[in-house]
């Protein structure tokens, strides 16, 4: 009798470019990896609201205020889709959120940097949403169906955010001397952290190979980083801004930009919790959660009462 190896069958299935759906059999490590990745992504969307929300009350025109508020609201929506995608794998949203609040779960380190000026809102849209898109366009083809479909929806909105951010930068760069300085300063501060968003180099990246095999990931960290740099450098040139990397140079042979060394020490420090805003971000999420407890309790109590009243009515 032939023994059926589920793992092999699963790998064949994934290799044939078919989507894995919630009811399908899947290896436990595949499920765990996805829950971890999708929930981290969800947390990043939600924590990522904070640095940008910091500027809603101070946006310098009503048009910009409305656009920024709508953008941050979109990020909340992304968080929701992603928590739902994680739930299709059997995870429980309140457990996932609990892990974020306790500091056990990770979120993208980029959101542990402060937004110091209005130009940061432009730089985040342009660079941070831009880096997110590079990653997420790839994830639109990820092997897990619900995740891939969530990404398709999210990517459309992220591209819009990126254009909006770039447009803010463009207004600043075409504006007064102070505005242009503001834009350059923001680029100086957000450039390197944006490159770090793609994660450690392929040599250092431990989980990457398995994720590639399962077609959760389809490009390596270094490939994605390079794509992002190649796309972004000409955009900076168009703005008339200087990328803060003295080693940046177009390699005529390959058509790719070569770039200077990334400060991985900084990356690991921020990851460990030592970034400029790690503490604030987590405290802000915890405070919102704690302040909202009585509201959630009341909403549940009311929903229960309403259900009981309905029951009484139909019994009568």
């Amino acid at each position, binding site marked *: 009798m032939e023994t059926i190896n589920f793992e092999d069958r699963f790998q064949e299935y994934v290799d044939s470019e078919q989507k894995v759906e919630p009811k399908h059999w899947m290896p436990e490590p595949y499920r765990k990896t996805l829950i971890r990745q999708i929930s981290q992504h969800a947390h990043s969307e939600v924590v990522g609201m904070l640095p940008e*929300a910091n500027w809603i009350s101070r946006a*310098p025109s009503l048009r910009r205020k409305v656009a920024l*508020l709508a953008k941050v609201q979109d990020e909340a929506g992304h968080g929701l889709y992603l928590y739902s995608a994680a739930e299709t794998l059997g995870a429980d949203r309140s457990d996932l959120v609990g892990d974020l609040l306790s500091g056990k779960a990770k979120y993208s380190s980029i959101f542990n940097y402060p937004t110091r000026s209005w130009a940061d809102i432009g730089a985040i849209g342009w660079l941070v949403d831009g880096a997110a898109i590079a990653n997420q366009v790839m994830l639109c083809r990820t092997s897990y169906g619900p995740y891939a479909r969530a990404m398709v929806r999210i990517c459309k909105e992220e591209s819009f955010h990126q254009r909006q951010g770039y447009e803010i930068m463009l207004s600043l760069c075409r504006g007064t001397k102070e505005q242009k300085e503001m834009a350059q300063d923001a680029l100086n501060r957000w450039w390197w952290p944006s490159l770090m968003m793609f994660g450690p180099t392929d040599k250092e990246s431990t989980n990457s190979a398995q994720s590639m095999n399962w077609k959760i990931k389809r490009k390596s960290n270094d490939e994605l980083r390079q794509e992002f740099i190649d796309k972004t450098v000409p955009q900076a040139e168009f703005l008339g801004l200087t990328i803060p990397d003295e080693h940046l140079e177009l390699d005529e042979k390959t058509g790719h930009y070569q770039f200077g060394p990334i400060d991985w020490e900084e990356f690991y420090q921020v990851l460990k919790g030592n970034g400029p805003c790690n503490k604030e971000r987590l405290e802000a999420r915890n405070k919102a959660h704690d302040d909202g407890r*009585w509201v959630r309790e*009341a909403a549940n109590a009311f929903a229960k009462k309403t259900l009981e009243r309905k029951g009484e009515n139909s019994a009568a």
Partner: protein
Amino acid sequence: MENPLLSYTLFLADNSLITGQRLSEWCGYGPILEQDIALSNIALDHLGQARMLLQYAAEQKGEGWTEDRLAYFRDEKNFRNLLMTELPKGDWGYTVMRAFLYDTYHFYEMTGLLQSKDEQLRAIAQKAIKEIRYHAQWSAEWVIRLGDGTEESHQRVKGSLLELWPFTGEFFETDEAAIELNGRGIAPNYAHIRTQWKAKVEEVLELATLERPEDGWMQSGGRNGAHTEHMGYLLAEMQHIPRSYPDAQW
């Protein structure tokens, strides 16, 4: 004195602007992600209405005025919004109670403006009425949920209701401009709005197991630019960038 139509347009505009500004402070900090989104949506609606109204006011003022110049370069004493709209956001119960008292009023006000003889105000009311109806429903549902939720939520919203009540009298004040505009069929009759508002508020408060406070001394002054101490901070925060770089375009 400004002409009555302009001062009335600014009154409507400033109510929406300051309400949108305050509500947007919740973005990122709501008690439930779904409600964070809902409230941001409502804030967006108010800001959208504010923009239409400020654009209309700018058009009336003429030469060189824009929505942004009106929002960012007017001093506190020239803002006409109701005092209630500028009060700090408080807890979630305070926010939804304020929203309920104001949205209910706003709904009847805009319903009245659907008949306005001023074409632009009528068009703005037509665009906004659907979203304003939704705001009033959303906030009424929350008042009922919290009033009839737990003992804690009941006590909290009861306190908010008592704090906010003295700011409701200002809704229905009619100055010369309002009387003149009502006579010309441009502004609704605020005495009539008051009757509708009272009936609706009583109905919802009863469902929320809350008692309607007695009408006592009512706060007043927003329309004439006599604001609470909170207004200065709100404006300082909102206006500081454009004022620091007066020549800049954003």
